[in-house]
């Protein structure tokens, strides 16, 4: 048995210590659950579906993509939007049912940053992008059918990453307000993904008018400018927005101890409280079925759980936990060798991945039954 197989077996054994039981599928709706993700396997990049029905994840329709994908957006008609990871040059619509694709390549002086969503009304597609000349963040406003850019808005920061249409009104912000995570890390096209001049970091959360792009709110974690604001999840129970953070401190101790979660309640943005060191890296975030948030911490091999006010509750061991996804009654965490399906009660099931060589990206998307 090779080293990889050994480590895989050990990881699965470690997960078994969580108190899991054989999978009987009773947690899920009849017929199982379909999930979407991006992953790397054997030096090829993929997006595709998986079906959880019984004790394993069964691979469904798959598409090989030219470079690494990141965030996926499920459209009402069943197709999937994917944007290339920064500095990304392609945007894709893929229909898993018939394999049809619609490609759009960046021809202007812009690059995609890995996240794409549809507006609440479904008339537009929004993409986070970077202006290669100025390194400023842009929001691409695109026709929902052609994906061509109709307009472009400032993100009012650098390195815009995930975006989210507010699903319900919060404080002064109506439902549909576009919320954008400006990661704040300066980059240049000449240096690709090299993080430059971190002393100039300027991460922020912004609220934009969904019709005009007008800036209607902006918040910073002023007490710590080295926290990059990256991923977003709405918790309908606590009615707060959870934000997964990634620390960029030069000082290793400060980076390791940095918070991986911030909470926005419509008025203020504040970091989590009572959190132990989690290596300062939040890979993904999802809302928990009963309220609160899960943040994956791959560098700490943990998934950290918080209440809706950002108070740390506990952490679940999961080697290289990255991709999170939530559905009514349960949530999912994709790690190195297996995905956990966690019931609201905390009952956890382990679903080994179809192949040990699969390396999943940051996000799971759950396809509604």
């Amino acid at each position: 048995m090779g080293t990889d197989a050994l480590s895989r077996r050990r990881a699965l054994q470690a997960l078994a210590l969580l108190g899991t039981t054989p999978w009987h599928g009773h947690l899920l709706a009849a017929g199982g659950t379909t999930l979407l993700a991006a992953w790397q396997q054997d030096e090829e990049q993929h997006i595709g579906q998986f079906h959880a029905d019984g004790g394993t994840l069964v691979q469904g329709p798959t598409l090989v993509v030219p470079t690494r994908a990141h965030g996926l957006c499920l459209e009402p008609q069943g197709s999937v939007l994917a944007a290339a990871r920064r500095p990304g040059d392609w945007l894709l619509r893929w229909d898993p049912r018939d394999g049809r694709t619609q490609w759009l390549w960046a021809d202007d002086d812009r690059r995609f940053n890995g996240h794409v969503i549809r507006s609440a009304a479904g008339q537009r597609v929004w993409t986070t992008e970077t202006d290669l000349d100025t390194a400023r963040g842009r929001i691409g406003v695109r026709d929902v059918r052609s994906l061509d850019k109709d307009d472009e808005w400032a993100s009012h920061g650098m390195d815009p990453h995930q975006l989210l249409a507010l699903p319900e009104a919060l404080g002064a912000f109506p439902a549909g307000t576009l919320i954008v995570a400006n990661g704040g890390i300066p980059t240049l096209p000449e240096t690709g993904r090299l993080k430059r001049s971190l002393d100039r970091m300027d991460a922020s959360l912004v609220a934009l008018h969904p019709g005009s792009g007008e800036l209607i709110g902006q918040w910073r974690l002023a007490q710590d400018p080295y926290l990059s604001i990256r991923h977003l999840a709405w918790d309908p129970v606590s009615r707060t927005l959870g934000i997964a953070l990634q620390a960029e401190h030069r000082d290793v101790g400060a980076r390791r101890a940095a918070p991986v979660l911030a909470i926005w309640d419509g008025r203020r943005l504040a970091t989590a409280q009572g959190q132990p060191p989690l290596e300062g890296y939040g890979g993904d975030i999802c809302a928990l079925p009963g309220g609160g948030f899960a943040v994956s911490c791959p560098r700490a091999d943990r998934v950290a759980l918080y209440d809706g006010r950002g108070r740390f509750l506990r952490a679940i061991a999961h080697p290289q936990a990255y991709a999170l996804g939530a559905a009514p009654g349960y949530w999912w965490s994709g790690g190195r060798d297996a995905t956990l399906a966690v019931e609201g009660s905390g009952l956890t099931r382990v679903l080994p991945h179809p192949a040990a060589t699969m390396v999943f990206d940051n996000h799971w998307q759950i396809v509604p039954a």
Partner: protein
Amino acid sequence: MTGALALVTLPAVPALAQVAFPYYRGEDALQGLYAQHMPALARAFEARARALTAAVREQCTQVEPAMLLQVWRQTLQAWLALSAPAVGPVVTRRSQRQIDFWPMRPPLLQKALDGQPRTLADMARVGTPAKGFPAMEALLLAQAFDARTCGYLTLVAEGIEAEASALRDAFDRLAAHDWTEDEEGARTAFAEWINQWLGGLERLRWIEIEQPVQRARTAGQGRPPVFARRSMDDNLAAWRTQWQALRNQARLAPGQQDAPPQPGRDLIPIEALLMGKGQMALAQRWAQAIDSVDRALATLPARPEGDEWMALSATMKKLTALYQQDIASALDVPLGFSDTDGD
């Protein structure tokens, strides 16, 4: 020279060939790069750029465009040899953007021509997609020039020459920099070099070779790939020049297995850094992966087909994967947003 000596046994050569490689510091590598290697490349580029300006200024209306195109090619090769990978002033001056921005935008070029700029100051108001090497190539491929086009070509050449002179000056100043007296600067510059080497490889592999093929494939209807340069000969030459420039900084030169590069005297390539750290097996894998790219490029036909481009890219991608997974970490350099990391 400090640190331990690493005893090297190279499996590819007879067992008698055991050579002690010194442990190289980052400062040694930077001194080799910036004092020994880059200044000569910058001077060569400046000389070619001056020749290009002179040729355009003096002969534009008198010679066949093909003759000027040949001078343009020589200057382009010198530029690519300097800028692969882009380090130091090539990054801070954003030189690639200034003089080698593509895709060139024909409407912007036409607008610039119509504006009849007369000085480099006028050219500052012209967008980068309408000047530099790609714009010049587009104009030189025309059958004949009028006085207006020649005037514009002269200004474009002067712009390239000005950038070349600024780079030569900046690299000359860097050559005198004492990295041992600048610990923080050395750490940053070494990390930039290691990251940028990968950036240069990926620019070549993805931006220049595979992405145009993928674009054409996804467009369907048998559309041919549109590469950076207009002719396939020029693309192949550009790719080989860039690869050779990257390779020079990556692989030991002939004879260096027996006579390791010396700090303060030689360029110290990445393979030597690995051997100096005692990472013999990794250095061997590194050398083999580089040699695979050598073979793939050498055997690429004059008119490659889609699968041949993709095979070349796949070979290069193995080098990228090795670099991301093992090489950078062996050199104690974190890669910014590496493919082995999340986002």
